[in-house]
């Protein structure tokens, strides 16, 4: 007796489709995991490592080779000299060896006990070296006719050196020092507070300003397209260009903004906008709002233009005033896009680095977590501490993304 009903499980067609899908996705998954997931894992690894910027150059054997004494007639006995040193002043190198080829026509007279010659190949085993070790090897040789006719010098064949040095990045030394360093000190609390201020006010500001801009342009008139394009300028222009334009505009000595304020009688002496403590943070937040209001403006405008106009006509008939229409009709319709934008912008503002870095370099109380990563890793050259801050950032982001997945992806219909 056959059971009738839909087939159970995946059929061959579905399997083929899934295979094709993974095939199409493979390049993306591969690229993204090498450049995103791998570095993320690396960050965790590095954050437990006592690694500094200088450690990136692994210690290596530096070798110089020359020939001393005359070598211009048969029977002359010059010396081939090898000068070797450890490039690092801090770390030892183990199992140092080098090998070279002695040119034809030079016969070796005497050999260092650590070296061997077989056929014309010279290999020397120099054992373990301490940090900053130096060594000079000389090999006396006798010149024969072939050397003079060939014209091949000992320097012409480059010597190959090998040595094993322990790399901080790959060895098994771990430390919690990076984290204790980051969390200790009142600095961290300030960084956290600055980040929070910047993120919250930057996000709310872009939304509010974007909402106003969208309200202005939500009607068709001549020049609406031009204005819309114009209002997107701050977002489209390269951040470095606009950041420097702001710095020059608000320069404390020769900035136009100060000159204008003094001329209007608002202030008597020039204001150091990006150099004083509470003001610098406010200014970078204002810059963030200025630069990103176009984005929220575009989204809000797109949503506004998709609201049915019948509703407003009905409200007009019922005698609702413009403010009432805005408050009771538009705002509820816009809440969805506003909350999505809030979450997205919140996370992106939290992640923002270049703006503050270019405007103040994190000085004058504007150091956010992302700027702190750079400061620790490159200004203080402590890569490990930078990575520890990055881990903290990543932890915060994981929390945000739980929210994101819960709310935004539902709104967006993902």
């Amino acid at each position, binding site marked *: 007796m056959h059971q009738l009903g839909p087939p159970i499980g995946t059929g061959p067609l579905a399997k083929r*489709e899934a295979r*094709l*899908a993974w095939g*199409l*996705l493979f*390049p*993306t998954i591969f690229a*993204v995991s090498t*450049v*995103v997931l*791998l*570095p993320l894992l*690396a*960050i965790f690894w*590095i954050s437990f490592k006592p690694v500094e910027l200088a450690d*990136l150059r*692994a210690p290596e054997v530096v070798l110089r080779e020359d020939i001393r004494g005359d070598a211009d007639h048969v029977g002359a006995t010059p010396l081939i000299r090898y000068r070797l040193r450890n490039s690092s002043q801090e770390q030892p190198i183990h199992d140092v060896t080098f090998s070279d080829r002695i040119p034809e026509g030079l016969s070796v007279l005497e050999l260092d006990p650590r070296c061997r010659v077989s056929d014309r190949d010279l290999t020397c085993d120099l054992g373990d070296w301490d940090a900053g070790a130096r060594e000079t090897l000389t090999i006396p040789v006798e010149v024969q006719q072939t050397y003079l006719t060939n014209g091949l010098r000992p320097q012409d064949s480059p010597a190959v050196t090998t040595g094993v040095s322990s790399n901080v990045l790959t060895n098994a030394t771990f430390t919690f020092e990076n984290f204790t360093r980051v969390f200790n000190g009142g600095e961290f609390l300030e960084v956290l507070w600055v980040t929070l201020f910047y993120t919250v006010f930057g996000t709310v500001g872009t939304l509010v300003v974007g909402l106003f801009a969208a309200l*202005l342009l939500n009607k068709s008139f001549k020049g609406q*397209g031009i204005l819309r*394009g114009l*209002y*997107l300028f*701050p977002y489209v*222009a*390269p951040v*470095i*260009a606009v950041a*420097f*334009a*702001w710095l*020059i505009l608000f320069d404390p000595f*020769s*900035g136009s903004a*100060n*000159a204008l304020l003094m*001329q209007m*009688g608002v202030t008597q002496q020039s204001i150091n906008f990006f150099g004083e403590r509470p003001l610098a943070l406010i200014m970078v937040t204002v810059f963030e709002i200025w630069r990103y209001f176009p*984005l929220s403006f575009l989204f809000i405008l797109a949503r506004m233009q998709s609201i049915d106009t019948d509703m407003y006509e009905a409200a007009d008939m019922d005698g609702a005033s*413009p*403010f009432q229409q805005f408050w009771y009709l538009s705002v509820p319709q816009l809440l969805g896009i506003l909350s999505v934008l809030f979450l997205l*912008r919140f*996370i*992106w503002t*939290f*992640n*923002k*680095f*270049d703006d503050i870095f270019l405007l103040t370099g994190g000085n004058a109380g504007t150091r956010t977590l*992302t700027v702190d*990563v*750079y400061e620790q*890793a490159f200004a203080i050259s402590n*890569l490990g501490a930078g*990575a520890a801050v*990055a881990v903290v*950032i*990543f932890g915060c*982001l994981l929390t945000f*993304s739980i929210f994101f*997945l819960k709310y935004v992806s539902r709104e967006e219909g993902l």
Partner: protein
Amino acid sequence: MMRRGFVIGPVLSAVWMVVLSVTVAVCMSFATGEPFRPGIILSLLWGAVAGLISVYFGWSKVLYFGIAAGLCILGFIGLGPVLVGPETGLISRAVGAVALAAAFSASIRPILCDLVLGRLTRHEFETAVIRCLTGIGYIFFSAIVLIPFYVMVMTSLKNQSELMQNPLDFSIDISQGAELFRSYEELFSQFNFGTYLFNSFTISVFTVFITLAFAIPGAYAVARLRFRGRAAFSRSILLIYMVPMIVLALPIYIAFSMTGLRNSFWGIVMIYPVTTIPVALYMLQGYFRGLPAEVEEAGLMDGLSRLAVIWKITLPLSLPALASVSLYVFMIAWNEFLLAFMLLDDPTKFTLTRGIASLNSSEIPRQHLMAGSVVATVPIMALFLGLERFMTNGLTAGSVKG
């Protein structure tokens, strides 16, 4: 009390006059460098008077020419809403007065036209207020957007010592001719900006093509094909974007230092597309979903393979989306600063943004810095204005990063 024509008319008119006089004062200061400042009390007074007159008499041509003429005369004798200093030239004084008079008399009618002297309905009252606020909004937004760019362009054309003397004087001497563009000429002849421009352009174009090559198949798979893990995958695409660049930049810097990829064109070309693939994939899959599946199914029935369907049916149909995505990716790559700053040290390999960063030193005059900024801004702006429709569509479709 507020909702009476003879109260709200003068109030709005006075506020509007203050806004206009500030605008005219700022504009004239920026254009000429001569002292102009708004007189708040006088603006309120004359604005209120003009408002009361226009509400009382209603609209007529004579009245508005009268207001304009009155404001002109007041401006000339120095009692107008915009105050001038003793050293302000006669011509700029006249231009300021006429500009304010013209702007005010042309714009006050649309604001006040529905008002009557007596009691107003809530609708009339709010409409007038909203019109006034709208006007203020246009001025405010245009000012905040334009001023930084104006300062950027003008600083690049002016000598630094001139600007030190009077930071407001942005007037340029046209008679200088080609001398005006000296800083640009020096950028290209001494600071290698031709190479940077070329580097930026090639890197951006490569980024666009590599991104599309990865994102199109990926987006198609997520949008059309059924496989286990599809929902999880399409969610995690955007999550990738939540990872801040600086967190990734640190290990990338270490890896590039150790493998010798720093300071290389290919290193940058390898890394840029990865930052743009997720967003391109997300934008494209949204568009692919919107295409009718029936067209593709017809292709499949006629014996095309899936890949042929993508190539011959889906891609030609989604050309507008491809244009948007390409533009957006081009913009990201062109404007990218952090990775270029960290990974490039060799002046022959700089991109434009990295090149501008290298101009930021006390030995190089500011006009070069601003000229460099203009050089980086103009191409992306031109591209954007030319293809504005694609750009806005792309931005909204992608929901997009910042």
